[in-house]
């Protein structure tokens, strides 16, 4: 991407320091890098976008998987990057393919909204909107240390370890407080309570007994998100239906609930989070998809 010279009109219509999305970067991570590059408090760019586009806010428990196009369109000239580059920092394209013809929605990936993990008195103390307390928000300390990078993969449900660095994601600081995506009055990428840089959180290696599970989950996500289509998802549903009789009733590995019945119609509407939970719980592995869709 080209530099902007002072005499160009874009000089005045861009932020003082521009940042461009890194490969596999998640949009809120890009916004935090923008805050850091411009010496702004955490969440300044995010709040500016909401205010400028008159967006009512994402509400409590949002996962920020998909952003409205109006926000991306507004952000693109501020960074002088194409909108398509910003779209790639969300899972909008992948989910649109997977859940066609429905428009992409966060719930397609993470399921229904859950309550956030931060108590209300805490939200008040850091002067933030509920959105900053994103449920299940976690980070890889090595990604942060290397490039201040929040990958899109950090929002994939059930993954507890960074698929790149094989260290545990951190949802809490060593001081015990949860990590908040945006916390006013703090610099970006630091604990809002103690100020510890997220890059300094301990590197906890992936234990041997978790390797297969994490690998399979990651492989499923690659399959569904990178190569996925609505027909692939339907085929996965058929595979589940053909195998599920042997297992019902069974307990979902991640959700911890018992499943007594699965309707074929409902399978098509399942979130990826729930679908993967069923696949893993009834012992279907990504290899079952290796030679085409074996039903």
């Amino acid at each position, binding site marked *: *991407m*080209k*530099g*902007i*010279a*002072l*005499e160009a009109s874009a*000089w*005045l*219509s*861009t*932020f*003082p*320091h*521009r*940042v*461009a999305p890194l490969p596999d970067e998640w949009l809120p991570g890009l916004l935090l*890098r923008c805050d850091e*590059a*411009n*010496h*702004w*408090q955490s969440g*300044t*760019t995010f*709040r*500016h976008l909401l*205010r400028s586009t008159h967006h009512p806010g994402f509400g409590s428990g949002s996962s920020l998987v998909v952003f409205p196009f109006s926000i991306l369109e507004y952000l693109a000239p*501020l*960074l*002088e*990057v194409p909108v398509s580059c910003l779209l790639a920092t969300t899972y909008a394209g992948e989910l649109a393919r997977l859940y066609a013809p429905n428009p992409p929605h966060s719930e397609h990936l993470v399921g229904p909204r859950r309550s956030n993990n931060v108590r209300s008195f805490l939200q008040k103390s850091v002067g933030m909107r509920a959105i900053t307390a994103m449920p299940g928000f976690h980070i890889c300390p090595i990604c942060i240390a290397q490039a201040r990078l929040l990958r899109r993969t950090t929002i994939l449900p059930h993954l507890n370890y960074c698929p790149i660095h094989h260290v545990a994601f951190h949802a809490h600081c060593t001081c015990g407080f949860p990590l908040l995506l945006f916390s006013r009055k703090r610099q970006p990428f630091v604990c809002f309570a103690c100020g510890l840089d997220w890059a300094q959180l301990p590197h906890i290696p992936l234990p041997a007994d978790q390797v297969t599970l994490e690998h399979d989950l990651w492989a499923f996500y690659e399959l569904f998100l990178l190569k996925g289509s609505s027909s692939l998802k339907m085929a996965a549903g058929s595979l589940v239906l053909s195998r599920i009789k042997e297992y019902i009733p069974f307990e979902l590995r991640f959700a911890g609930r018992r499943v007594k019945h699965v309707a074929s119609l409902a399978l098509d509407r399942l979130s990826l989070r729930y679908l993967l939970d069923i696949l893993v719980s009834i012992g279907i592995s990504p290899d079952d998809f290796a030679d085409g869709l074996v039903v």
Partner: protein
Amino acid sequence: MTELGPRPPFVVHQKFLETPFERRFQGLLRQAWQERSWHVIAAVPGSGKSLGIADFVVSSAAYKDATGTTQLAVLAIRAPKNAAREQALGMAMSATLGVVPRMPWWQRRSWLVPILASTGVECIIIDDAQDLTLAHLALLKELTDNLAAPPYERQVGLCLVTAHSGNVMPFKETFARPDVLWKQFRRRLATENPYCVVPGHTEEEVRRTLMTFEDLYRSQLPDLQLLRWTKTIFTWLTNPILDPDATGRVAMDHLTRLVTTSLQRAYGHGAADIDAAILQAVAELMILRRDEITFIEPISHDELLPQREQA
């Protein structure tokens, strides 16, 4: 007069001309930038200060790249008008950097220091500095002091560029006051050339500038010979009406107006050069009829109708 066929409209060149005044003026700006020194630079209105600053800033090779690096070695702003509070100056400085989200003044004030450091600001130029207030100057001192202190340890040059008239040197009296702030300000001014007046053009410099105009406009007026009018033009433009301080120098704005208006008229008459009559008419317009009021008669509806019908 050579008769020419139908011509396209006359094009006035908007190019920045590196005139002798600009060389002197930009030389001072460059000195302040290189030596990180503080100067008050004065010149008469219309001498080309603002154009010189704009060209100087552009040539400082500022850029914003996509990896987060922004270089703005020379930050130039115009002093806020009718806005005496320090916020106005802070906002003007922020605005030159691009889009900055809304933030309270206390936050913006402290934000200015790291952002000026990270964008590599080495020299601040304030145009129309005669409009600066005490609050603005205090903010400038605070910002530059904070930049000079750890962790930034960045000395920043400062040029207060002012329009002046008469023999009064702007800021000289203010900085000579006994208040601590002014003492501190005075101490920061450069040892060499703290107060500079950049004069306009001498007759020889007018001649050289006319030579440049000839080159610029020869494509539109092929027989153009401006040099022969040097003496006359210099005499007209140093008339007490245009040079009330009797500096004996020519301001670039006057020279440009006289030349381009004359060329425009000559071109409009289908000529390939200007003549004495045209030059004199324009000079009279500038000198004798400068404050003349023109009454624009209202155009009646009836007069417009036939034209509309023709159209």
